[in-house]
């Protein structure tokens, strides 16, 4: 393979796609006509805006206001926690003194990842600003003290009046379990790092954290046999585990265990079944009482467990109401229906 020509081939894609993906880099002067792909929304909530939000929610007596409470309200609204009945969403008492500059705001477990929202301070506006030039910093990470386990984190919002940076942290559930086993306790000490250069970083915390419970609704779909017209193959749709921010489809097909075990080495054999897996994830719909439909839209990864292939995906924008599921369908087939 001529790698130089391969590079050129990938470089020959249409200009429109290159421009669509263009991201101005900090340090570039921006013009009003510049297009920015909105992959990540940055929010700056001032004290006045946060206070207005509190009043709009009907809280008339507001004595002990703080940036922590304001951010908790904002997160709850943005993630649609109340309207979608996310009982597993946990908010913490943020009135205590920060532990090493770290305050827990809230957390939710999507089945594969423990999401934790935190405030860290004091963080200067300069420190909290976006990466400049070709350097990737600042980068954020969350770790479990005393272990090698951790996850990544990213900026959610910054308040310059209080010099408080809000981060969204993602700790794999597997890592949390291993850390708890290693430390001999479910209450593990977590800390957050703000890495501002090759050799420079600041740590905030540690603070004690216990993994939150997962809110899960398990649908037994009774081995419904689905024939996929695109691949002309049959697949049994065994079940669906549904959480407010994540889902796992469980399916079974001929030779699934062996195919999953060798899917990277023997792509040709796995390929048609991979297509089938993707089609199920995209085409199957969850229908709610207002008639709206939701699809998990493909899977991030698959694994074989307990006699079935598990297809997992998660989403961030807002929760879904797993208690409001009326039907689960694929094509014309009703997989499940509320009585």
């Amino acid at each position, binding site marked *: *393979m001529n790698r*130089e020509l391969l590079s050129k*081939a990938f470089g020959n*894609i249409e200009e429109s796609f290159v421009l669509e993906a263009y991201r*101005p880099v900090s340090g570039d002067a921006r013009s009003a*006509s510049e297009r920015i792909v909105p*992959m990540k929304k940055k929010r700056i909530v001032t004290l006045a805006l946060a206070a207005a939000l509190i009043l709009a929610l009907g809280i008339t007596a507001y004595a002990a206001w703080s940036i922590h409470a304001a951010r908790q309200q904002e997160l709850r609204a943005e993630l649609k926690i109340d309207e979608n009945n996310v009982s597993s969403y946990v908010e913490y008492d943020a009135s205590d003194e920060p532990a090493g500059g770290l305050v827990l705001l809230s957390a939710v477990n999507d089945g594969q990842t423990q999401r934790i929202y935190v405030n860290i301070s004091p963080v200067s506006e300069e420190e909290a600003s976006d990466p400049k030039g*070709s350097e990737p910093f600042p*980068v954020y990470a969350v770790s479990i003290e005393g272990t090698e386990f951790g996850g990544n984190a990213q900026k959610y919002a910054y308040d310059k009046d209080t010099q408080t940076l809000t981060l969204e942290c993602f700790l794999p559930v597997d890592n949390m379990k291993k850390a708890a086993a290693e430390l001999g306790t479910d209450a593990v000490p977590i800390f957050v790092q703000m890495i501002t250069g090759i050799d420079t970083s600041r740590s905030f915390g540690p603070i004690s954290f216990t993994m939150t419970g997962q809110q899960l609704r398990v649908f037994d779909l009774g081995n419904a046999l689905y024939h996929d017209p695109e691949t002309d193959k049959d697949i049994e749709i065994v079940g669906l585990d549904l959480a407010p921010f994540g889902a796992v489809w469980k399916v079974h097909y001929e030779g699934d265990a062996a195919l999953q075990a060798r899917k990277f080495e023997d792509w040709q054999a796995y390929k048609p079944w991979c297509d089938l897996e993707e089609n199920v994830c995209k085409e199957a719909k969850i229908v709610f009482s207002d008639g709206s439909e939701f699809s998990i839209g493909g899977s991030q990864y698959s694994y074989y467990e307990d006699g079935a292939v598990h297809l997992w995906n998660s989403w961030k924008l807002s929760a879904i109401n797993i208690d409001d599921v009326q039907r689960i369908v694929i094509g014309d087939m009703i997989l499940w229906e509320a009585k």
Partner: protein
Amino acid sequence: MEDGKIISLFFERSEQAIEELNRKYGAAVKKTAANILDDRLDVEECVNDAYLRVWNNIPPHAPDPLVGYVCRIARNLAVNRYHANRAEKRGGNYALVLEEMEECIPSGVNIETEYDAKELGAAISRFLSTLKPEDRFLFVRRYWYADPVAELAVVTNGSANRISVRLFRLREKLKRSLMKEGFLA
């Protein structure tokens, strides 16, 4: 400064043209080169060469939009320098990008001529048009802009592991797409 005014400065052969180009897009051009080349001196030379090429090409060209034009020049120069430098060296971000690109090509297919590269580029464009915008963004950022996976994870609110898996699935989709088009040697 608007692109049109910068181009006018080039037409007037004003040295301010390069200053304004650098002020507006310098960081993006430098990053495009830096994602491919490990050596800071190589990156600086690549950026300077890109500006020289833009100076020599405008006029008569008046590219619109300007950013795509200058980034593409920088990328091509960086890739050429990368391959010229790489006879003895291994590793680095772009080496990983190249390995991943190779995974997308069905076995038995070889890219041996400029024509092959052009045909493959067109096929990749057709594939990209079938993707959701967020998948297309990820693919182009990784395989055109050569952004490191860790950076993509930060930009897209995901973990590096998830981004790696998404990229893997996109590579597999491209491979299927190329095979479906009968893209064989």
